[in-house]
């Protein structure tokens, strides 16, 4: 079997991310804040396919998601960074398998994504005190939901993709 990015069906699975972003199911949200679907998809992808593929996939996903949302803030920097880092973890260390580890990595990824958006918001929009409270609430809620969902979604993706790309 070839690498993940050479398998059309695996690449096509990325289309689920913008679709889920638009669908925004209410029942999968914490206080109105849903999970970061990009993080949930990118984590197993980068762990299986390596840092370069992870960074490129992060950039591609970020561009699509930025196109779907209003405002000037971008997800690209955080997704590229996390794709690269998760790819390195997948290549260097022993394979990540435990649910807790997957959940923790997704939690960190969503936290970094939230902090990058917060920073951009502060630089571009406003630094009002009310905005800070809302940004903190959104970052923590999204990180928590993403971290809780990752063991369910990520483990399943890892299992399928590792079967398609044997080490």
């Amino acid at each position: 079997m070839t690498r993940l990015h050479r398998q059309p069906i695996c690449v096509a699975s990325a289309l689920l991310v913008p679709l889920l972003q638009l669908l925004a199911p209410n029942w999968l949200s914490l206080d109105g804040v849903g999970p970061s679907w990009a993080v949930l998809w990118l984590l197993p992808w980068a762990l299986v396919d390596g840092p370069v593929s992870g960074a490129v996939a992060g950039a591609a996903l970020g561009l699509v998601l930025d196109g779907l949302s209003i405002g000037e803030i971008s997800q690209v920097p955080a997704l590229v960074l996390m794709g690269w880092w998760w790819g390195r973890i997948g290549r260097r260390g022993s394979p990540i398998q435990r649910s807790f580890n997957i959940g923790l990595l997704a939690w960190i990824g969503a936290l970094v994504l939230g902090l990058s958006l917060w920073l951009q918001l502060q630089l571009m929009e406003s630094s009002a005190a009310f905005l800070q409270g809302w940004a903190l609430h959104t970052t923590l809620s999204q990180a928590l939901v993403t971290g809780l969902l990752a063991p369910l979604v990520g483990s399943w993706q890892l299992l399928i993709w590792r079967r398609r790309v044997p080490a």
Partner: protein
Amino acid sequence: MGLSQWSQRDRLRAFRRLWPWLILLAGLGLVRLSKGAGFTDAFALLSRPFWPGSAQSEWIQTAVRLDDQSRLELLEKDNARLRGLLEIDQLSSGSRVQAAVISRMPSGWWQQLVLGKGALDGIAKDDAVLGPGGLIGRVQSVTPATARVRLLTAPGSRIGVWLPRTRQHGLLVGLGTARPQLQFLDKDVQVRPGDLVSTSPASTLLPPNLPVAVAQSINLRDVPAPTALVQLTAPPDAIDWVQVQVR
């Protein structure tokens, strides 16, 4: 003496015969003074089973609604004519397009709606989007078949508003939370919790006199000018259909 005794007895007898009539007369006098209150109340009590039913009441309510509606239409036309004379703006004469909400993100980083109609239906950037109850946002971008709406609650959303009671202008700024912030331009404000916030009657970007929000809490000590937190009259997280005011 005997004669006078007889006449006195006769007078007493005559009085005894007359006193019921005198009481009746006094009673009638009371009826006259009270404008027949007892009679009408008694009549109301007795005739209650034969009063007009609910159907008739509904007819009257429908007639009143029709009357209000036609009066509102006449006033709107009159208003549009006067606005035309004053050359304030022609937005109110534009038509409204009904659109379904196909994607909703009322909270989180991007607070937006995606509508199922776009440029093909005449929707353009910066068109006002109305929910049941008032303004909810403005169109941020359009595709041929969809339109993306920036909600008033979204961080970075800013629109000019008007307080009809105090006749003051303000700036409604989205903070990401469900309650946007109203920033006043004057230092001396007489706003009270419960005051209506609407679009300005002289607005050129948005339809005039649209209800937007209700003031909830006021911070008079804020610098450089007082601020207030407001509750939107049309909560965007529970709306499936909206109207877009096209120009």
